[in-house]
């Protein structure tokens, strides 16, 4: 028995990738994070997905790459290539607006607008994701993953994680 599938479209691929979670922050997908740059279907039906790494040393990169490949293969694509590009470099400004809200509800303060090129010794202002107060203290400038920092809110007394603005 053969399974007939509707022809693969880039739209269908984008939709499938929108369900691939970030392995370290499962409330957002790889497309929410702005990691997927491009989807191309070649004449022979081979699919090429171009993605950009968030942090260069992120240990989840190969998991992300494999999940992207798997999601496209699950749609019936016989040949999938997952390419990575560094240009332009990923920035937290690319995280979608609704995904920022989901991050906040999950307890992670979304990133402030990224500044480019400035070497400064001060950290960005951050708002408590729980009570929205700016009365917060950074307790660790590196968190459990490369993309996050640790804070405590002095208003509601809750500890929380904040996304670095990159």
């Amino acid at each position, binding site marked *: 028995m053969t399974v007939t599938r509707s022809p693969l479209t880039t739209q269908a691929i984008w939709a499938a990738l929108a369900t691939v979670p970030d392995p370290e922050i499962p409330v957002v997908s790889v497309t929410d994070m702005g990691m997927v740059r491009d989807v191309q279907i070649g004449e022979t039906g081979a699919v090429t997905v171009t993605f950009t790494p968030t942090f*260069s*040393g992120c240990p989840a990169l190969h998991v992300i790459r494999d999940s992207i490949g798997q999601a496209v293969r699950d749609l019936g694509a016989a040949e999938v290539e997952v390419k990575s590009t560094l240009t332009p*470099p*990923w920035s937290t400004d690319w995280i979608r607006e609704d995904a920022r809200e989901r991050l906040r509800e999950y307890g992670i303060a979304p990133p402030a607008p990224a500044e480019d090129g400035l070497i400064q010794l001060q950290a960005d202002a951050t708002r408590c994701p729980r009570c929205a107060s700016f009365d917060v203290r950074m307790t660790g400038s590196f*968190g459990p993953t*490369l993309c996050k920092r640790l804070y405590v809110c002095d208003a509601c007394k809750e500890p929380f994680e904040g996304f670095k603005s*990159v």
Partner: protein
Amino acid sequence: MTAPATTLTETQQAALIRKLTALADDEIILAQRGGEWTGHAPILEEDIALANIAQDELGHAGLYLELRRALDGTDPDALAFTRSADEYTSARFVERPKGDWAFTMLRQYLYDAYEALWLDAARHSSYAPLAEVASKAFREERFHLQHTALWVERLALGTPESLRRTQDALNALWPDVGQLFQAEEGEAELTAAGILPDLGAVKARWDGLVVPHLTVQCGLGLPPAGAEQPGRGHHTEHLAPLLDEMQRVYRAHPDAQLW
């Protein structure tokens, strides 16, 4: 405009391979030293922070070695895990044992300031693949510098004991730091072609950032500068045992597919 790899001459390509390897080697060795604190840092947050920084530095080493792979096809893992001390080109600055917390933070700070400023300049490289890598890594490096600058300040302005240790660390590290700013063979030609940053200009910016911070802000005394540094082929006796430790698993299982 940026130049594609094909426009490099053979000499330029060889010099660029040497430089990329030296950059990667410094990152790998420093990351290994940082990783030695895992489970041993004074507080949990700093254990996590140093592991993060080490992970970023390894990420940068990976980027440099991927650039090298594009030029000569060598495998980054094989380069990192099978070369002996004789073949490594790390600076003695990063090889020294991790020391105490003040030594670790001060070394990482001096290195982070150098790396951030070097990357800042390399973002304008005429060699597009390097410009891309530098733009990526620069964004991450700023966080290291913020973190370690604050620690150096905290230690220098802390107790008499923490000040003494920080000053001792500076006395020990200062003579070695110049090696980071020493050009490799053939590097001048690459700098003239706009492919690599001008190390003299990077050093001038580094002095402008680091010296007032250490002296005015932190109240530390600058020791005299070190004598002329030997080349990167001259290692400390600390490199070989570090590589023994770092490469043990890879060498024991050279064909492993999954880690």
